[in-house]
């Protein structure tokens, strides 16, 4: 980095630090969320009701079109060939047999692929969506084992698959850095996440640890994980004139449209990405090489292309969660007050992405400790770019931290819930900001009561039932409230009193369209059937990702902004005969199918009447919410208290989860039905993290050896007990609707709750995930 760039960054850093301080110090009323969203007070509307999914009937009847189900005239099917070495060059690439195979339309390799720019790397710009920044099929270089080296297009999928198998490849192998431990021993660097170093220090934690009356100091390791949403990554893509049309499975439609435009040198508006239904995302449905290759192939072949990655293909070219090696050291006094909190360790990324697994994130706001040391080091390996996977950082970070708390509680002879309660911070320990909403103790109390925590025998290996040892454990889960810049929404109100909301957001199965229809109905004072919620289309307003559990807040803030604009516009056209004449927007709200003066609700006029008088068929407004300064003014997080009961077989070591309870503190719950599903889904993924998920990455070749759902284990139905879910339902006064996104919180804390229960059952402390039976024999 040059001196000039250094200076620029320093200046920028100082400016940002100054801004952060100013925002932290500003009066609440200057900050978004300073005035609570009026919907928080609304208790008789649609919000909070267990409304069934609007798209449920479509899905169960098979009528919801997914990305790989859009038919196109003249469409061809794609298959990809992948490299089998981690680093080097293609010394030969013989495609003659593949080209001559029946039905083959095109074999694309670096030799004939169109010239394209590398994808903009996610986080490197406001709209960047790429999983890595490597050039795509532009030369003979191999960067990871599994990199696509040829795309075959054929009239049928079978023909494409067959032709792909006829491609002959030779390699010139170069030394690749693949092994985690070797790379770590050579040296590490401090990791950066979203432009900030993953390092925090308060006081002298190592010294405090030395001096502590009670302490634990342990290493926890977590393996690689791969994304396995039920819907394989796929898209149907066509060049229509100068427009690139993509039916995609996406959690970043607008980002992907812009990023594809950069790759192909197009105007952003020339790329249209739609994604009405997605079969699970979890961080994986961003932009990967198959998007670019399919579009390039469609361009070369002059025909629409459908590409669906095989399950193996998802393992080969969609990144997953990186392995971590974490140290947690805790020191406490006689009363269990933490005097030292150390959470450090190493993770893995590549030279061409920007995602070190940030496992200290949950620790930053977890506990009041006098001395804190948090640090993430990274090594870079020649592998597929890793990426965001449900609660990146928190999912594995809480495993280490919350197991350590359990270990410390035992040392202290203290109930693990009591230990956590004694270390509840009054304000954010790192940032010093006040919490916007933190009711974790209530969540613990309610969860303990319902789960029957008092029946737990704190002495390990003391409860059994025949062949089975029984144990209970608990752990804290946490995930931040995020709201990212880029929000925008359009509302069109018709003379019939219907409202259409347009916003480029996503429905990956979590219930967005249903929940946001409920919210919008309440906000506009309309019945749900008067609301049409349009989403999943890059041409709609907003650059909003369904990630970081931020979509709910982003939509909420955007619709608030558009609603305010709508009120302004309606008052502008209301005219002097309206009962609302002369009122200011701030004094007016939506009620009963129209507007009224807030403190004089009888001064009311329906939307129909307003538009009819103004002789308007419709009114359309579009607005952007303010920048998300609330996250710099308050420390905003969701929390959970997780309770687990396991049985472990004395003979075989088989661990099985028998009961689970998640007690959540995530602001107001907008729809208990869809929320319950999301919480449960997160917990189930957490059970997999605890007990079975494990990418077998062969460090001799950098190759994933279990790229299938037969060998890469996720929980099956029989592994999942009934999961009880409760919540505080206390609104966050500073979040739109008082709500937090809840997509990720469920997986956090789950792994530790399982591990702690297994310890209670067996007396064996397993600090290495997954906890398979061989570790319990």
């Amino acid at each position: 980095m040059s001196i000039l760039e250094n200076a620029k960054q320093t200046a920028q850093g100082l400016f940002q630090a100054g801004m952060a301080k100013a925002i932290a110090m500003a009066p609440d009323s200057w900050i978004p969320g300073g005035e609570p969203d009026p919907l928080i007070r609304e208790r008789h509307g649609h919000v909070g009701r267990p409304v069934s999914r609007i798209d449920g009937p479509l899905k169960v009847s098979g009528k919801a079109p997914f990305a790989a189900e859009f038919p196109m005239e003249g469409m061809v099917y794609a298959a990809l060939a992948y490299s089998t070495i981690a680093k080097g060059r293609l010394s030969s690439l013989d495609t003659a047999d593949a080209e001559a195979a029946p039905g083959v339309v095109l074999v694309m390799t670096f030799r004939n692929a169109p010239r394209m720019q590398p994808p903009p790397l996610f986080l490197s710009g406001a709209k960047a969506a790429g999983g890595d920044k490597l050039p795509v099929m532009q030369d003979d270089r191999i960067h990871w084992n599994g990199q696509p080296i040829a795309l075959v297009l054929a009239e049928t999928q079978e023909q494409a698959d067959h032709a792909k198998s006829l491609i002959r490849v030779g390699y010139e192998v170069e030394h690749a850095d693949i092994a985690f431990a070797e790379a770590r021993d050579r040296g590490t660097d401090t990791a950066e996440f979203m432009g900030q170093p993953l390092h925090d220090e308060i006081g002298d934690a190592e010294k405090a640890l030395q001096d502590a009356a009670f302490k634990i100091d342990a290493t926890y390791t977590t393996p690689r994980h791969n994304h396995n949403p039920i819907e394989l990554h796929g898209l149907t893509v066509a060049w229509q004139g100068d427009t690139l049309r993509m039916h995609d499975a996406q959690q970043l439609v607008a980002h992907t449209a812009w990023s594809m435009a950069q790759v192909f040198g197009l105007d952003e508006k020339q790329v249209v990405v739609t994604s009405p239904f997605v079969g699970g995302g979890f961080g994986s449905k961003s932009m990967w090489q198959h998007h670019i290759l399919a579009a390039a192939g469609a361009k070369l072949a002059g025909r629409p292309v459908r590409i669906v990655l095989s399950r193996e293909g998802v393992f080969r070219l969609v990144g997953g969660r990186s392995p971590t090696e974490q140290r947690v050291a805790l020191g406490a006094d006689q009363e269990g007050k933490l005097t030292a909190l150390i959470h450090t360790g190493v993770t893995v990324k590549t030279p061409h992405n920007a995602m070190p697994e940030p496992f200290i994130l949950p620790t930053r706001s977890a506990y009041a400790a006098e001395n804190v040391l948090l640090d993430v080091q990274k090594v870079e390996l020649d592998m597929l770019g890793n990426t965001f996977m449900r609660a990146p950082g928190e999912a594995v970070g809480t495993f280490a931290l919350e197991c350590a708390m359990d270990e410390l509680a035992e040392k202290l002879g203290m109930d693990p819930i009591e230990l956590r309660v004694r270390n509840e911070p009054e304000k954010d320990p790192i940032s010093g900001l006040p919490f916007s909403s933190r009711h974790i103790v209530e969540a613990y109390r309610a969860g303990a009561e319902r789960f029957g925590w008092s029946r737990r025998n704190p002495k390990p290996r003391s409860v059994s039932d025949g062949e089975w040892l029984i144990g209970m454990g608990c752990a804290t889960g946490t995930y931040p409230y995020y709201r990212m810049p880029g929000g925008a929404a359009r509302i069109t109100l018709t003379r019939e009193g219907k409202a259409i909301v347009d916003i480029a957001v996503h429905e990956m199965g979590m219930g967005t369209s249903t929940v946001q229809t409920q919210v919008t109905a309440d906000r506009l004072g309309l019945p749900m059937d008067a609301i049409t919620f349009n989403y999943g289309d890059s041409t709609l307003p907003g650059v909003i990702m369904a990630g970081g559990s931020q979509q709910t807040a982003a939509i909420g803030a955007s619709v608030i902004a558009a609603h305010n604009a709508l009120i302004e516009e309606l008052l502008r056209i209301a005219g002097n005969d309206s009962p609302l004449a002369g009122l200011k927007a701030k004094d007016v709200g939506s009620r009963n199918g129209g507007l009224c003066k807030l403190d004089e609700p009888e001064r009311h006029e329906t939307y129909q009447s307003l538009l009819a008088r103004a002789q308007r068929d419709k009114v359309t407004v579009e607005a952007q919410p303010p920048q998300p300064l609330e996250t710099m003014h308050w420390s905003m997080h969701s929390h959970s208290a997780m309770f687990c009961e396991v049985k472990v077989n004395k003979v075989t070591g088989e661990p099985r989860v028998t009961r689970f309870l998640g007690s959540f503190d995530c602001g107001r719950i907008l729809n208990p039905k869809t929320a319950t599903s999301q919480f449960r889904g997160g917990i189930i993924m957490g059970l997999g993290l605890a007990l079975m998920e494990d990418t077998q990455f062969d460090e001799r070749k950098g190759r994933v050896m279990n790229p299938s759902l037969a060998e890469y284990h996720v929980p099956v139905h029989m592994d999942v007990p009934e999961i009880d879910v409760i919540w505080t339902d206390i609104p966050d006064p500073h979040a739109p609707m008082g709500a937090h996104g809840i997509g990720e919180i469920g997986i956090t804390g789950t792994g530790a709750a399982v591990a702690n229960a297994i310890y209670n059952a067996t007396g064996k402390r397993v600090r290495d995930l997954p906890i398979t039976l061989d570790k319990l024999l």
Partner: protein
Amino acid sequence: MIPFSYARASDVQDAIAKGALGGTKFLGGGTNLVDLMRETIERPTGLVDVTGLSSEITETRDGGVMIGAAARNTAVTEHPLIRSRYPALTRAIVAGASAQIRNMATVGGNLMQRTRCTYFYDGEGSHCNKRAPGDGCDALSGFNRSHAILGASDACIAVHPSDMCVALTALDAMVHIEGSDGSRSLPIKDFHRLPGDRPDIETMLQPGDLITAIELPASSIAANSTYRKVRDRASYAFALVSVAAALEIENGNVRDVRIALGGVAHKPWRAERAEAALRGKPAGEAAFLAAAEAELAAARTFEGNAFKVELARRTIVSVLTELSGGAV
């Protein structure tokens, strides 16, 4: 997938005639073969569908049971004769795969299942002597947690994945085979091969041979038989270790015993040493443990699978204890 021809066999002789062509394979439920064809690991030029041949399950004259090779796995598990006389077989089959797969899979096909060694499956990216003799074995110093501890060779440490075959092995099943030279039958313990230096040859079948039936001999011991499978998740996972056993106790002594192990070898492993060590001994944990030790003394482990010895020992003892009616 490589293009191939497809024909249905109308009877056994038709199947033999159609299967005589080089490169031809018989197709049962296809639950394993078709997967392997998709991966281009199996590359038959022709398939002869034998699912239309006998799928009957009938009692033999001497009180055994004959199962047509085309019988679906589910049909076997549900048959009253199997459930009452050979409970280990029903338990083994339902411990495998998923209901959908068991509905498709045939008994004959189950015997022909190939290993789930991930290096075997990785046709393009890994070395495997089973796919290509002489190519080398990446599992030896790679991921071998699920691999063999008994009877392996330096050429191959893969395991046979079947649950059903483990029970059949404990139950002394006979495999009936029809070939160009006529019919013959083999005890199932001799049907599969150890890897030696030709791990690509997995059974005693000659090219063109067709499995026509599995016969369970009449057996007094089989009624007191069971199957226990130990795996990484509650369902839909291959055995790390499994034990099929049958036990007959007379006056407190082991009169007769059958033990077969799954997940530990290139073939369903008949634990003859353990059986010999146990016959005539007083039934009890000490004898069961000694029997397990006798069998596992020859175990050779690798970096990932050393735990299997202890797991097998414990599971054998537990299963025998259960069959002896004693408490664990």
